[in-house]
């Protein structure tokens, strides 16, 4: 415990998350040892991919400050999947489905960015509005029906594994986290994001193009949502209007749990990935223990509140 106390920032977050993860695993092991198989691990990571991508976008938007938040992430995932599939049905070559998903997501994210930066709308209201527009459109365009017709080669990628690890995780989620981590730590761009999140006025005064950077970050969050849509389509074999349900809550929880400060300017991507894996392990464990899925959203909500309260308390003690 003394060692814990000397840890700081990201290292502290990561060790706490690892500790929590071990606790969850031990509890699961005690309650139901049969949970531990390669298959379970694979499905945990499979489930993680979508949440990881969305949480990464959420984390970036929050980190950049300016009361940044993206409540529309779930809507972006649903709508990009649906619209991309509808395009394919209208005659778009299926080869372009992946690109379509990501491009549509980027477009929807950029719309958020324009509302927030060019029109200076408060992010929480702007993205609350677009959340209902995007998820409403996904439902209204399809009447709630799943859109099938995903090419088989895409299913091979979406369901394939390498050494027990899903291909989607290896080829999209990991690179996205790695690239974002490198950008945040080693490039001027990354420093800008921290700077504008930490103190926006100073960031503007030293000449950082805050609005442009923020617009790009909302677009990036959209692009990651589009990538998550692609993963869902390739995995499930159809585009579903409800695939993004509760993602705003889950991604916020993952970001907060991963050590991103809601006020911006603090946190890293490693914690977010660890938090996503912790959340999904918890969810899979509950599923294995036959706990009704309606408990999941409540547990995630409780976690979010506790993390925020704990963050306040820790600042109080510091």
């Amino acid at each position: 415990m003394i060692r814990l106390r000397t840890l700081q920032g990201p290292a502290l977050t990561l060790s706490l998350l690892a500790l929590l993860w071990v606790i969850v695993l031990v509890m699961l092991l005690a309650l139901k040892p049969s949970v531990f198989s390669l298959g379970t691990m694979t499905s945990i990571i499979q489930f993680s991919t979508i949440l990881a991508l969305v949480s990464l976008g959420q984390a970036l938007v929050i980190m950049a400050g300016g009361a940044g938040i993206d409540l529309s992430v779930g809507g972006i995932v649903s709508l990009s999947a649906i619209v991309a599939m509808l395009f394919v049905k209208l005659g778009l070559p299926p080869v372009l489905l992946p690109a379509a998903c990501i491009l549509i997501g980027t477009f929807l994210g950029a719309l958020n960015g324009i509302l927030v930066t060019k029109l200076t709308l408060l992010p929480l209201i702007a993205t609350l509005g677009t959340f209902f527009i995007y998820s409403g459109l996904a439902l209204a365009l399809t009447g709630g029906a799943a859109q099938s017709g995903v090419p088989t080669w895409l299913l091979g990628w979406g369901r394939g594994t390498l050494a027990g690890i899903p291909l989607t995780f290896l080829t999209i989620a990991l690179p996205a986290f790695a690239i974002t981590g490198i950008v945040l730590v080693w490039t001027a761009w990354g420093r800008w994001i921290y700077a504008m999140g930490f103190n926006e006025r100073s960031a503007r005064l030293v000449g950082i193009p805050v609005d442009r950077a923020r617009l790009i970050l909302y677009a990036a969050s959209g692009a990651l949502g589009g990538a998550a849509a692609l993963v869902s389509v390739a995995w499930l074999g159809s585009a579903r209007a409800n695939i993004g349900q509760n993602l705003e809550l889950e991604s916020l929880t993952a970001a907060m749990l991963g050590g991103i400060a809601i006020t911006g300017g603090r946190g890293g991507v490693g914690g977010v990935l660890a938090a996503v894996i912790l959340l999904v392990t918890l969810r899979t464990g509950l599923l294995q223990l036959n706990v009704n899925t309606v408990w999941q959203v409540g547990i995630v909500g409780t976690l979010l509140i506790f993390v925020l309260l704990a963050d306040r308390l820790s600042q109080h003690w510091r």
Partner: protein
Amino acid sequence: MMNGVLTRNGREWSLLAACIVAIIVFSVASPYFATSGNAATLLRNSVELLLVGLGMTLLLAMGGIDVSVGIVMGLAAIGVGRALGADLPVGVTALAGPVIGAGLGLVTAAVVVLGRVPAIVGTLGLLGVYRTAIFVLLGGQWLSGLPTGLTDVLAATFLGIPVAAFLIALAYLAVWLALRRTPYGLHLLAIGNSEEKARLSGIPVVRVRFATFIVSGALTGLAATFYVANYRNVEMTIGTTLALDAIAAVVLGGTSILGGKCSLLGTVLGVLLLRILQNGLLLVGVPSLWQPVLTGGLLIGVLMLEVAAGRLSFPQTGWVRK
């Protein structure tokens, strides 16, 4: 003089005009719109949104927000429904709504005000918790076919006017008096303008914010009483889009989402306009699935217009003090 009234209450007049235009357009477009039956449906559908909207007006004017109001109404409605089903006295049944609502408002206040958590994130977390609570309490089954006890009392007339109308007028009057005729109202608007300045000038910021979340909860609970009386069932998806509807109606009514400025009359007209649009579009054949798209679009559209008119400019600063 007239000119002064027009500019001072420009928002209310233009909302009234928009309501009238919408009524005329839909009356022409659909033979079912301008019927007394539809008018009654429209008013009935507006009641719970109006009550929730009054609470949301106070919250937004204070610089707060609550996205869990729809589900809070659902939880209170379950309480009211259970009380109604158990044949408790009508007074107890009717009060169950506001009491449960105020209790849940207390929880929200504890998390957001005492925990110093941004309201949007805190209430989103509570939304998740409450959604599970609704599923667990209902156990996968709707409350339906509830007795008519509450409905009869609210529909009974006094001096030719339904009791329900008296209650709603009373709620409106109480909120108006609190906001415009008491120190509490001034404090609330001061906090909405600048929490920092309000604190420095000695306003009991924590107490006022705490009270406002409880008042909003109680109004939401009252909405639940009306909901149960009107529909006599509680479904699993109750209140899903109520928070969005309320925020859209209140912003439409001229309340600033940055706080410090609000209009209760604007909220009433905003609620009416929103419900007229939703009802009318349904009648001319737009599927109800499009409603969230319309409401979200309306919300953002109004804000864009306000920005364009230079009436609204958001400071690009962070959430809360660091």
